[in-house]
């Protein structure tokens, strides 16, 4: 089975690009931050510098690992789904589910290994850059030397292997079960349990903010984690949320967008579970980016208003926040684009069938566009909701104002909608450009050929 795995990677490298890319990015981030542990462990590093280094390594390392797992799981789920046909064929020729599992897990492990090795160089460069940022801002003493050692290497390798193999195992187990029983995913109940758990924990974290003091250094942590947990909860619930939204939009879409709207509603209803893979990164991205960026902006204004200079801790926090947002943006975009690209290119057969039934290319694109809009609206709505919960809690405690959107009266000049609009435009652009671009490419194939291609 392992040789089969190797052959399938060699023959179809394109399929593994998305997984490799997210694993590579993930390994780079994990190793970059874990090399701070190696650096902190160097001879003659003072305690302040060492604290800064280990804190950043632990916090971002933690976030990073979670996101890496999410991203790799998402790309592998898509990968396994795309190969449904191949997996069915293997089963029909006598492969047991365990053999197929070993094949897919083997492939994913190889991809994880390759990604980690490729990431060593970039991680060293990024680690150096990060250290010099810390040095420039005075958070770390000038004479601390960069080190890339066993902690970085081992954590990178082990986390990536674990994430890739684990995610592949989950994805293929779901797929082989679905083939065996011909049923839909039986894990919806477990997923619901996690979703409500995340929502409750998120609400708890957000509420905990109110018990804290306005000047507490870790004040931002509780609402930020709260917002992230709420986003994760909504993301896990996205198939259900999507059905709800479609129920509301069914009539207006049918009336406004004609045949395209009609097809959109039907398709999305049937494919709610698959589209959840697209909705998830949208909610995560909007929620996490909105929450972190607004909280940082409120914090900056609050410090400015108080008239004191930023402390080392303040600067640490800001650097970390911006890094976290950067990581989230990149990962969410990779996840979003990958799952959307796969979902759309997988459908060129369906588009072909619509064209054969009398749909013009414009009608097909219209349908894809309306779908993209509905997805963006839903994702942005629930992402904003979770982000807002964290922002309101943070802002109430920090500057005694629930929503510092401000007409210029509050402390600072208020935050305005600028950040949110920026986040939403990125989300909308990524969604619409990917889906319309992919669909357009699919439409270049004549309809008769498109339906003849094995899906």
């Amino acid at each position, binding site marked *: 089975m392992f040789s089969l795995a190797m052959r399938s990677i060699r023959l179809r490298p394109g399929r593994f690009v998305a997984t490799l890319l997210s694993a590579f990015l993930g390994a780079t981030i994990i190793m970059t931050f874990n090399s701070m542990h190696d650096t902190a462990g160097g001879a003659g590093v003072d305690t302040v510098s060492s604290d800064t280094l280990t804190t950043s390594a632990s916090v971002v390392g933690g976030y990073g690992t979670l996101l890496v797992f999410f991203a790799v799981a998402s790309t592998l789920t898509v990968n396994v789904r795309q190969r449904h046909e191949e997996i069915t064929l293997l089963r029909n020729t006598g492969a047991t589910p365990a053999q197929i599992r070993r094949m897919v897990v083997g492939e994913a492990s190889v991809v994880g290994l390759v990604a980690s090795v490729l990431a060593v160089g970039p991680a060293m460069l990024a680690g150096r850059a990060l250290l010099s940022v810390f040095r420039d801002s005075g958070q770390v003493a000038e004479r601390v030397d960069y080190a890339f050692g066993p902690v970085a290497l081992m954590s990178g390798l082990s986390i990536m292997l674990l994430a890739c193999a684990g995610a592949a195992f989950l994805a293929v187990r779901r797929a082989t079960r679905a083939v065996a029983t011909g049923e839909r995913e039986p894990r919806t109940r477990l997923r619901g349990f996690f979703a409500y758990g995340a929502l409750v924990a998120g609400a708890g974290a957000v509420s905990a903010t109110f018990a804290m003091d306005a000047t507490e250094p870790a004040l931002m942590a509780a609402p930020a984690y709260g917002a992230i947990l709420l986003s994760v909860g909504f993301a896990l619930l996205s198939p259900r949320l999507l059905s709800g939204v479609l129920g509301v939009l069914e009539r207006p879409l049918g009336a406004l967008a*004609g*045949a395209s709207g*009609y097809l959109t509603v*039907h*398709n999305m*209803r*049937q*494919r709610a579970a698959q589209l959840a893979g697209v909705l998830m990164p949208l909610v995560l991205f909007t929620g996490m980016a909105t929450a972190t960026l607004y909280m940082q902006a409120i914090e900056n204004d609050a410090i400015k208003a108080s008239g004191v200079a930023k402390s080392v801790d303040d600067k640490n926090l800001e650097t970390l926040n911006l890094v976290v947002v950067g990581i989230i943006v990149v990962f969410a975009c990779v996840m979003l684009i990958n799952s959307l690209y796969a979902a759309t290119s997988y459908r060129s057969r*369906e588009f*072909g*069938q*619509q*064209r*054969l*039934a*009398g*749909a*013009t*290319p*414009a*009608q097909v694109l219209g349908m894809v566009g309306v779908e993209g809009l509905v997805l963006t609206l839903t994702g942005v709505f629930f992402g904003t909701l979770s982000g807002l919960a964290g922002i309101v809690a943070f802002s109430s405690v920090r500057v005694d104002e629930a929503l510092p959107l401000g007409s210029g009266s509050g402390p600072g000049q208020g935050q305005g909608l600028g950040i949110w609009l920026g986040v939403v435009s990125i989300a909308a652009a990524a969604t619409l450009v990917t889906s319309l671009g992919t669909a357009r490419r699919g*439409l270049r194939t*004549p*309809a*008769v050929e498109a*339906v*003849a291609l094995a899906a």
Partner: protein
Amino acid sequence: MFRRTGTSRKGTAGPGRSTSSEALRLVSVTKTYGSSDENAVTALDRVSLGLRAGTFTAVMGPSGSGKSTLLQCAAGLDRPDRGVVRVDGEEMTGGTEAALTKFRRQRIGFVFQQYNLLPTLTVEQNTTLPLKLAGRRIDRNRAREILAQVGLGDRLGHRPDELSGGQRQRVAIARALVTEPSVIFADEPTGALDTRSAREVLRLLRETVRVHGRTVVMVTHDPVAASYADSVVFLADGRLAGELHAPTVDAVAERMAHLGDSADADASGYDAPLGV
């Protein structure tokens, strides 16, 4: 065998439709695949053909003789390199796919071997989809009536994956009928079906001609299927290779056997003229 059905045609034909007695006319249609000289395949070589309205024609020929290409060019699913296609007297001109699609919506129905129903829509929704896409009024009773005629009156809410192959193909026929096209093309409509379902589909296609007055053109490699038609047109190496009226199973089978011979002879370099 040639029953004229012009009078039994339901009075729904649009202006300029029933006035033309010729439903389909191909003039010197040529189609070549592949660009470079070495791998260029002439799938259709100056094919000219005329079919009267209200007839059922089978197209037969060895595999690779250009049957599917002929159907797709005639149905506006593919563009011929040269030649003219006229449906109901209207010349098919379409630079863009959208233009061809609009032309097809008015005049053409297509039934595929692999059904090509939309998996997310129910039987009834699949049937009315072409009307919806064309922005035409949907007569639900009419759609249900057609579905009842093809024997699916009790399956309106089912999805394609809940139906047998034969039932799916009957949905596809209902979908082709609902826009009241002048010509219905069917490419190996019984190719994926068992004998019994195949017979039902063939009977339905024949009824489409007899009762609804449509013109049906069907590609098949099965002499039994071809015997349901009023006439058979033979194709070999992208060229017309004869015609057979009021075909019987035996006559078709025999002609096919000879076509195979001549195709082989062609392939080995002899340019055997076809005695048609």
